[in-house]
């Protein structure tokens, strides 16, 4: 958080291009996911960590079990009514800056299940950066989403998130 305060204290007067690029490059290439595997998409997320697809080469090798050490929450699977407060608590426990990828149709919009038991989309309780359609999406889709997110993180640089 210190970097954001530094940027704010300098106001908009000082351009921090190179520093911002370096920070963005560092952050983008070492996004650590907090494993939040809920259902079937979690199996494809685990498959992304295996040698054939290897999310480790994108910097996300360390899938932290504790949200306090993670930057990215990959919501993979359907979010039920009972699980929603738990998900929000885990999201709140993650330190800034943090991002959310909603993996799969169930996490993005409720998927095949349009009924009482599921949240129709995880964006009802947390802000989502990238949505991945599919049921379940291929592991390559998850890597694609990660790359999109990395571009955004690098472009954001040092500016505080809105």
């Amino acid at each position, binding site marked *: 958080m210190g970097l954001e305060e530094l940027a704010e204290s300098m106001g908009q007067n000082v351009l921090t291009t190179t520093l911002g690029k370096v920070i963005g490059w560092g952050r983008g290439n070492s996004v650590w996911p907090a494993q939040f595997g809920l259902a079937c998409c979690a199996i494809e997320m685990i498959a992304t960590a295996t040698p054939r697809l290897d999310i480790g080469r994108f910097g996300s090798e360390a899938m932290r079990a504790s949200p306090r050490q993670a930057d990215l929450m990959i919501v993979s699977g359907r979010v039920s*009514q*009972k699980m929603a407060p738990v998900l929000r608590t885990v999201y709140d426990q993650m330190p800034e800056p943090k991002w959310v990828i909603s993996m799969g149709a169930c996490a993005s919009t409720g998927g095949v*299940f*349009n*009924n*009482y038991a599921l949240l129709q989309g995880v964006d009802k309780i947390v802000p989502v950066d990238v949505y991945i359609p599919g049921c379940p999406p291929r592991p390559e889709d998850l890597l694609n989403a990660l790359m999109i997110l990395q571009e955004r993180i690098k472009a954001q640089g040092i500016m505080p998130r809105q």
Partner: protein
Amino acid sequence: MIADELVADRGVSAGDQWITVSAERVRDAMAALKADGYRLLTFLTCVDHLADSSREWPARFELVYQLRNLETREQLRVRSFVDGDPPHIDSVWDIFPPANWDERETYDLFGIVFNEHPDLTRILMPDDWVGHPLRRDYPVGGEPVDFSEEHEKWLTAPEEA
């Protein structure tokens, strides 16, 4: 053999044998069947016959117990009909331990109260949920879908009795 006076009706449906017992005698029937050799309760569930015109039903809720004899591999389905608000029936968890969670689930989703159950609380829905979702007059819920002929029905419910 289970005593004939306990069996109210019997039949075969798609190759499966079934019998009907009255809700008050369900514990006696279960104990008799277990002594007969049907020692495994495969599952226990409930069917809601609200607005079901396929035949005459004695009551709205039908409890279904599927029993199996591990030695002869025979299966038997036991039905029991209950009504009421909320419907009551005796618990069989001490005769068949797998019924413990099955009865909690049936209570959670249908509202059937099992007498003498050690811990009859909600198991699948959150503890403060109101209503019993699998009853036919509980709407499917979710969000309306455009251009779908059924989308209006999905949020309103009850099936006319």
